[in-house]
């Protein structure tokens, strides 16, 4: 029976339903399934999947290694390029990356399940405990990494491998960045983000200091003074404004904060959710907060997006995931004003939109959506590097191919740099590339 308690409330579901709703969205392959699936790979020449992979994992090779009975070698092939291969196997939008490029997609519309095979390989090796890499002879060089998200962790790991001493400064209580606080709970079950951090730190030579951020006990100048190199993987702060009237009333929330709260909740039944939820945005965060609201027992969840399905940053597959879980996606509409009742959000007045001569405009026609909870999920663009002389581009840090910033001795990667894909895997790639560049710099 649907829970129709008005307003924002916890406990909308029977207790047992929470575990069920937030279980692994793609259950792992068992050994037999992995063998059957790996048999489907054609071991393509100059494989399109590998070309499509933002971190160029040798996919045909690792699948062949699974197929020949050596999942642990497969995991090494993956970790060589991507030490967060375990998380990427869970969160990568493979349907728009490797699996979209798979020739089996062209041949029969069913790509090899590369993501699940990657998870099978990395899970197999990680289940063993221990760490697959060893460190080079200590170099005596010290590197500061700011931010313990995917970019920072990947950078720190590769630097530690090369024998450097790494200190990671992290603002939050836990490491992992968006892996720990951001992505949807059903993509990273069983505390995997924390386990992966432990796995990465298993290489040694990395110290993490929590509660430290630029401007909060840290300055770039001091970091530069005390270290031989600095890497910034600070992500994005703040959320873009809605640009609608009354968007500061009770009931209007930032999706990223809510997801973080959800990810850290020990008892999901205590997490309040609206009966009617409206999400504004078109990216992964919008999908994640919408689907999770629904899974928490919201009766109606609507995503409002100002353009069409093709323009959404969330892939067609992700849109389908939301829709099959009962989320409605209202395309070609934008928020005008939050409707307020008794000082709280009661709905959202929206205006239909249209593209006229390539420009998005409101049509003037207004409709109201009832809502007791409204989420802002229209992106984060604000970076906080107060007082630094770093060149920016489109509001993010400008870097070159090696992820060097405009300031010598400072590298950057992940969501805080310009021109990225805003994907975990792309952040990892940034971190690894920066680390290789830093290593060359330190050895010069």
């Amino acid at each position: 029976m649907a829970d129709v308690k008005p307003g924002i409330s916890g406990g909308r579901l029977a207790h047992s339903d929470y575990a069920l709703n937030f279980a692994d969205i793609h259950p792992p392959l068992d050994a037999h399934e992995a063998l059957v699936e790996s048999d489907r790979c054609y071991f393509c020449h100059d494989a399109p999947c590998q070309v499509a992979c933002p971190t160029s994992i040798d996919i045909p090779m690792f699948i062949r290694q699974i197929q020949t009975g050596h999942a642990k070698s497969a995991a090494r092939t993956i970790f060589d390029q991507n030490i967060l291969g375990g998380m990427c196997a869970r969160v990568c939008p493979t349907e728009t990356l490797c699996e979209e490029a798979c020739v089996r997609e062209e041949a029969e519309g069913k790509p090899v399940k590369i993501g699940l095979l990657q998870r099978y390989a990395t899970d197999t090796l990680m289940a063993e405990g221990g760490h697959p890499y060893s460190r080079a002879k200590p170099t005596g060089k010290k590197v500061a990494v700011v931010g313990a998200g995917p970019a920072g962790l990947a950078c720190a790991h590769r630097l530690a491998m090369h024998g450097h001493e790494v200190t990671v400064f992290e603002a939050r209580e836990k490491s992992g960045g968006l892996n720990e606080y951001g992505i949807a709970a059903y993509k990273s079950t069983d505390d995997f983000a924390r386990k992966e951090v432990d796995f990465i730190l298993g290489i040694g030579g990395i110290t993490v200091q929590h509660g430290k951020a630029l401007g909060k006990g840290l300055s770039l100048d001091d970091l530069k003074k005390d270290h031989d190199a600095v890497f910034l993987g600070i992500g994005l702060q703040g959320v873009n404004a809605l640009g609608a009237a009354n968007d500061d009333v009770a009931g209007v929330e930032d999706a990223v904060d809510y997801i973080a709260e959800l990810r850290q909740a020990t008892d999901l039944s205590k997490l309040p959710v609206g009966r009617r939820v409206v999400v504004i945005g078109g990216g992964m965060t919008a999908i994640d907060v919408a689907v999770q609201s629904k899974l928490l027992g919201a009766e109606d969840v609507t995503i409002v997006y100002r353009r069409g399905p093709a323009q959404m940053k969330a892939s067609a597959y992700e849109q389908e995931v939301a829709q099959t879980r009962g989320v409605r996606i209202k395309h070609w509409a934008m928020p005008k004003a939050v409707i307020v009742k008794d000082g709280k959000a009661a709905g959202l007045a929206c205006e239909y939109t249209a593209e006229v001569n390539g420009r998005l405009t409101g049509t003037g026609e207004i409709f109201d959506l009832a809502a007791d909870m409204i989420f802002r999920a229209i992106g984060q663009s604000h970076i906080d590097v107060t007082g630094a002389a770093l060149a920016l581009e489109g509001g993010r840090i400008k870097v070159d191919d090696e992820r060097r910033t405009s300031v010598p001795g400072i590298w950057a990667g992940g969501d805080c740099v310009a021109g990225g894909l805003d994907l975990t895997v792309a952040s990892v790639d940034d971190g690894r590339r920066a680390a290789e560049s830093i290593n060359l710099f330190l050895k010069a």
Partner: protein
Amino acid sequence: MADLRSNFIGIKSPNPFWLASAPPTDKEYNVVRAFKAGWGGVVWKTLGEEGPPIVNVSGPRYGAIHGADRRLLGLNNIELITDRPLEVNLQEIKKVKREWPDRAMIVSIMVPCTEESWKAILPKVEETGCDGIELNFGCPHGMSERGMGSAVGQVPEYIEMVTRWCKQYSRMPVIVKLTPNITDIRYPARAARKGGADAVSLINTISSIVSVDLDNFAPMPTIDGKGSHGGYCGPAVKPIALNMVAEIARDAETRGLPISAIGGVTTWRDAAEFIAMSAGTVQVCTAAMTYGFRIVEEMKTGLARWMDEKGYATVEDFRGRAVPNVTDWQYLNLNYVTKAHIDQDLCIKCGRCYAACEDTSHQAIFKEKDGKRHFEVNDAECVACNLCVEVCPVDNCITMVRQTEGVDPRTGRKINPDYANWTTHPNNPTALKAAE
């Protein structure tokens, strides 16, 4: 609908699909199940001489080679001939033949290579009312160590001698089952014919070790830490069997000798190929052991439908049609020129053709066009080896197209429409001599 009825050396069966002498035909229970499923006949698992029955190992008897998704491609066994008392087998054969008179019932026999032994068993077998006997001169493991099976099949004189005894001491049609574990299959086949055999059947299994257990360094299947070679069969051996059948079919001394073909027959198509190569019946074992007896339904309907499409009313209408086209290499037309062609609509751009050609062959495939991933044959380098065709995962995507006019861009030579082979080729020293 095509008529699948078969009359092989006077032995009638409703279709040419027989189960080979092997575990599936060891006893009444299995054979009755096979007949119910629609098999045309069986060769009853090999009987030995009277006395204490054969003893089999109690450990694993089979090993295998698998393809994708554990599809069984090759099977190896170390099982011996029947381990049930002779009398029990004979009673069951008699009973089953009586109850299934329209099916072919052949009895496989293997006794020591002495006249008395054969003389003793033949009347007992004949008394069952079976349709014929098959002499097991093929089994390459276990029994061969005792001077039977392939130990006989590897000595043409023994084959001829024993065949003659069988013809002498019984009125039953005699099929001699040949071992492939020899250098030239024509010699044992000729010996069988000389001895008076009504037919030959081939191939029996090939001596093999399918794999080594890397934990205890022993061949698989492993019996208490040791392994011995077994007999290999299944889809993997079909090409070997097909060649040996062809060799016998086109040899001057054995041409026309009826053949019951065995070796990797898994589908109707395999059967049709063997029949086209002159086989009167086909014998199946591994396919049944892999999928069960029901597969015969696919084989029968597949063969009949293909015959209907081709307009063949009976099996005899196309039997042996491929034999005249099997020739020696020296007679192949050296003026015949083809080039590989990639159908761009079917191509899925896996690039396996490119990897195969570039790394291991003739560098005759382009992998890019206008900066895009695109695979196309370079006729100027293509020798038409067919490797790209075979490694392509898409059926019919790459085909060989004959060039009938103009110049072969690889050799720069004009296409010659005439047939010319090695025997007259200027590079052939023997040919030159003949011309002088």
